């Protein structure tokens, strides 16, 4: 988690490369979408257009820069991205005073969209990011939530931005969940060797998996906390692993005296099945 300054680190560099091309407010919105995709979600731009086939040489290529003539069309934007060897197409359509930005995963045909008004969001087309787009943090959050998340399941480099509202991890928590999950949620670091456990199940026998019994006692070897439980076969002394007592053993007083089962109960008809 970082300050807004950290999140937009790298924006100035991108802006420098496209400063001369920008001629309308919508260009900035597309550039910001490109920034969120490439800087924080590891997408790489492989060119312009709507071609849905991914050439072999394109799989290895990709850049964080916007390609030339990216805003040449007055009302349309079409950019191709690659992530995890999959092709995505970002389309922008300027119409009725708004811009509709659509992201399409070409393989799964999942699509997402966001509709924005550049007049409301963009104050200026030059200057620092917060001068040009005062609500840049919230807008980047919206891009991530409305544009990216419906379309791909990938690892974000930074999943939260500093916003005025609560962080995204609590926004995305399941309202039906009770308590905190035992399993770390997707996207967090899994240390090697830690096995995620299902929720709510006690870690019975955890120590058997570990030679140093760090997870508590296991079930394979006798544990010292119950030394008074004598249910082993004669002469074995103490509890044996996975031993199922098979009957009353006269030399071990496991039943109270007198044994209430030594005779059938009074009025017993002889039928065990009632």
């Amino acid at each position, binding site marked *: 988690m970082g300050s807004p300054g950290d999140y937009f680190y790298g924006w100035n560099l991108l802006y420098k490369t496209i400063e001369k091309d920008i001629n309308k407010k919508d260009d900035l919105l597309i550039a910001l979408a490109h920034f969120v995709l490439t800087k924080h979600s590891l997408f790489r731009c492989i060119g312009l257009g709507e071609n*849905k086939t991914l050439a072999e040489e394109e799989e290895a290529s990709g850049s964080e820069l916007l390609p030339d003539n990216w805003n040449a069309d007055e009302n349309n934007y079409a950019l191709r991205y690659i992530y995890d060897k999959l092709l995505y197409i970002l*389309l922008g359509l300027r*119409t009725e005073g708004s811009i*509709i930005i659509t992201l399409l995963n070409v393989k799964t045909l999942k699509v997402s969209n*966001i509709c924005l008004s550049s007049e409301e969001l963009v104050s200026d087309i030059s200057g620092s990011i917060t001068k040009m787009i005062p609500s840049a943090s919230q807008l980047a959050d919206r891009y991530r939530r*409305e544009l990216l998340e419906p379309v791909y399941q990938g690892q974000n480099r930074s999943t939260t931005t500093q916003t005025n509202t609560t962080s995204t991890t609590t926004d995305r928590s399941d309202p*039906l969940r*009770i*308590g905190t999950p035992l399993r770390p949620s997707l996207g967090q670091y899994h240390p090697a060797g830690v096995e995620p456990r299902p929720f709510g199940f006690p870690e019975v026998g955890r120590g058997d998996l570990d030679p140093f019994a760090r997870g508590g006692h296991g079930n394979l070897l006798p544990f010292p906390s119950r030394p008074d439980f004598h249910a082993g076969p004669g002469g074995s002394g103490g509890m044996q692993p996975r031993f199922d007592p098979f009957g009353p053993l006269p030399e071990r007083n496991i039943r109270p005296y007198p044994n209430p089962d030594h005779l059938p109960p009074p009025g017993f008809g002889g039928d065990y099945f009632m």
Partner: protein
Amino acid sequence: MPLPEIANLECLLVLDTTSECAPLHLQYVLSSADCFQSSGELLFLLVYTVALESGYMCEANSNLSKAFISPVPSISSFHSKNVLRLSRLKPTFTASADRTRYAMKLCSIIDSRQVVPEQMHALLTAIVSGDLMILALSPANCMYADGFSSVLSIPRYVLNTQSKENPPFQRFRKMAELTNILRDELFVPMRNKQLYWMQAHVYPSLDALPAELYEYFLKHLDKNQMNILANVNRSLHNIVIRNKYFLNSDHLRRDHLSRSNSVLYYLH
């Protein structure tokens, strides 16, 4: 203008369309457009027709149609007379020069006295990219809400045959599937969202019951179950926390909930 008698009861909606017949309102919509249309444009007109069936109309026609549009209550969306009358008006939309981009402003027909116009508006856009049509239905910008989108395969629903003698609906296939996709992914969720903004109940559902009915089932829930219900959505949250059974119960906060025998505890 009086409505004609509907002769064919087998063919009332777009989803009933076959190569032999099309519903009357679809024929009206198709007749208002040019005789030679690309598959993409025909599909866009189909999408518009399904929008009419789902309780929308072209915003540009709203002033013209005020006189004859019947308000649609929140529990339904299809009003046959509205659809027939609106289908006679030429749909107003903008199309790019190469006929690959379409945009139409829609307006939900809702019977509500507290109508804020922006809450009812939605922008329908279609991008034709090769064989695909990418549709997006977006609420008004000032609502700062998510839109809905869908991808359709154009040749799946509109065959690419061109014939001036045959009516255009002979090119249509799988209209039931198309209607379901458009309603499920675009028109119904958007309309529900708009109704929610107007605090109109969508249809009888768990969070849209009359207030006095909640008493009847909340008294059968234990504190754990009431906590779960309160976390479903804001509307249910407000209902539960104000209910006397919740206030009287020894309720615990979600994050300090002790283990209970409830199976629900193990199911998340």
